[in-house]
């Protein structure tokens, strides 16, 4: 009780603009983090934030807030500042909320990230890590320690995907491919074949990472034909792993929640 009172006292300092003068060796903790606070935060989110960030915080006009990391800082203090001060140069303006409402919003955002991530997996994560290494996954994926860059970085995948999503990605990699990993396949007017990961596009050109590992730009006007492939080059594990091995690999992926192991921390 006394601790909570102390934290509320600290909160009052925020309210008087003292935040900027904080000693940053003292970590600011959220004093409103009960299930009731989360529920209140969800109500505030709907009325104040959902118009831009979507009804479930997964993004709309504004970015998703359920990816496990926040662009302007992952600490409670950073979130508090963004909500109450806004972010210059973006449509994120300051919100007129009292301190309690802001902390409750932060509690809701934390819960939304936990809820989106994987739950308790039945497999053995240690054996899953071995399968990950033995299968050559690191050739294309980074997972906490250095690995390949061709596929998505899996360092935080456990806080961003549910168990069923992880399993589906292993069995049917093309089921849902992030547009970041769509690829270009085309043929130039001079007959040259061009393939690569599409990194960007505009009316006139593509920017790709081509199949030889080179960054290059391609004019659409120079292409006789082209298509954007929304499939994954990753081989499926379907039929290649025993059900128990699949469970182990999913369990390992579910543990990948960033270097600190804390939800949403980077």
């Amino acid at each position, binding site marked *: 009780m006394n601790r909570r009172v102390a934290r509320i006292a600290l909160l009052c300092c925020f309210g008087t603009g003292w935040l900027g003068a904080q000693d940053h060796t003292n970590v600011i903790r959220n004093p409103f983090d009960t299930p009731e606070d989360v529920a209140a935060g969800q109500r505030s989110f709907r009325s104040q934030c959902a118009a831009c960030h979507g009804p479930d915080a997964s993004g709309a*006009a504004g970015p998703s807030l359920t990816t496990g990391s926040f662009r302007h800082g992952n600490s409670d203090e950073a979130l508090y500042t963004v909500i109450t001060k806004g972010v210059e140069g973006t449509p994120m303006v300051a919100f007129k909320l009292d301190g309690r409402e802001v902390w409750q919003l932060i509690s809701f955002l934390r819960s939304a990230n936990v809820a989106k991530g994987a739950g308790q997996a039945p497999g053995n994560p240690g054996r899953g890590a071995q399968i990950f290494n033995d299968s050559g996954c690191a050739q294309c994926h980074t997972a906490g320690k250095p690995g390949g860059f061709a596929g998505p970085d899996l360092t935080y995948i456990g806080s961003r995907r549910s168990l069923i999503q992880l399993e589906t990605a292993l069995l049917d990699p093309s089921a849902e491919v992030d547009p970041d990993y769509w690829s270009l396949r085309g043929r130039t007017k001079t007959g040259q074949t061009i393939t690569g990961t599409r990194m960007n596009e505009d009316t006139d050109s593509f920017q790709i990472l081509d199949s030889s590992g080179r960054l290059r730009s391609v004019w659409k006007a120079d292409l006789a034909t082209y298509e954007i492939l929304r499939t994954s080059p990753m081989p499926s594990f379907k039929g290649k792993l025993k059900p128990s091995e699949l469970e182990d690999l999913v369990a390992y992926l579910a543990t990948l929640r960033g270097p600190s192991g804390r939800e949403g921390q980077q």
Partner: protein
Amino acid sequence: MKRLALTAALTAIMAGLLSAQVPFDRLLRAVDEPQNWLTYNGSLQSTHYSRLNQITSENVANLSLKWVWQAQSLEKFEATPLVVDGVMYVTEPPNTVAAIDTGTGRPYWIYQYPMPETTYVCCGNVNRGLAILGNTLFLGTLDAHLLALDATTGRKKWDTKVAEYTHGYGITVAPLAVKDKVIVGPAGGERGIAGFLAAYDAQTGREVWRFNTTAHPGEPGNETWAGDSWKTGGGSVWVTGSYDADLNLVYWGTGNPGPDWNPALRKGANLYTDSVVALDADTGKLKWHYQFTPNDEWDFDSVQVPVLADITWKGQPRKVILWGNRNGFFYALDRTSGEFLLGKPFVKQTWSSGIDEAGKPIKAPGKSPSVAGTDAYPGVQGGTNWYSPSFSPGTGLFYLTAWEDYHTTYFQWDQNYEPGKSFTGGAARAPFQSLKRDPFIKWGPEWGYGVVRALNPATGEKVWDYKMRDVSDAGILTTASDLLFSGNREGYFFALDAKTGKELWKCYLGSQVASAPITYTVDGVQYVSIAAGHSLFTFGLGRTGELRH
């Protein structure tokens, strides 16, 4: 005594030099002095058309960069500058004004408004520009003040509080000077404001008249609001209107009703939201109105620039307003009477099954926002939005920036009003971030794309399209040499053949264009300026960097 007389004489001379730089008569005839850009919309008719013709389809490929003005702010640069006799006046976000020499790009002065610690506008601390009258510039601020600045020095003449900013009111619109008054209104359609247009004495800043865009008790239209819902009914004002001197009418578009996505909380047509209102310029009295989207459910602000054109309508000359609306329909209205002449979709839309003969839209079933989410076209940023359109008397075509094949999932829930807080009654989820993004385009083209679209104003039929991969927030400029200038979110500034839509020239500026291009002359030489990202770029014929002074 002698010295006093000399001082008095000097003062009189200075006053003569500094005052009446832009009397209203010059604004009335702005199209006749294309060497300048005297109002936000280029003229009081708001056609975004210039009689300049030095830059042509033959030489436009030789355009080169003359100078760049870099704003100190990271906010989106949405302003359209003014150019008055060799000086450009431009607003940088949040509320900074710069007076820049058009020949060199060097500043004469910069005025920085002292901002409050926080502001409560919904969608970025932006500003769209200024008005000038006499030797005074007029600036609306994000904390809902109207300022008069001396155009020679940038010093403040007066400061009038227009509304209470802590309750969600803010000014982002460029004011409009009409006769001896300056007209503005507040943004805040997502904050539960009760909107209005108000005219202020240009000399003193005293309010002269006010027209409520959510009709108050005792005013016609209040019956279109259930209970007290008019008090939080929105009707914001955030894009500049137009003026017809012959009719002495000011035309202005109004914003969405609030809360945006829950019409059950404000049953009725909600006058005068999502409307064009024609007001007597002297009294603010309503002459006529037309409501584009009664009881709006999708956030279809009708803040678009009212384009005043004189066209042939069914064989007869007619004074009309041309209007590409956020709701996806193109309209032609008689601007004398407000008579509905034409309403035709210009992009894919599913919210309406058509418009009846009286001009009232018929809502399509099953397209209302819902708890589970409802898909509807156009999406939440609309078929078009606040981007300045253009009408060229040369080609006879109406041009607008449109978002084609673009939809949104609209959600709805209950919401209580609290002053200054978000008041939307739901949410809208589009396939890509609809306000500002990083410079990547990765979504599928099936989720929507941008076009510059030319329409026949007499029929609403499409004449040509200039298709872009990304959507666009850029306005449009046309010239007497049948060129069309615009830009897009990809960061390109380009020139098209206004007759065919063929691309003639293009330059990558490195960031989103969210403003309208203008043209003017420096020492008799035609220049074109456009803001992109955090900078304003000026182009002309001849060598890159070649300055005139």
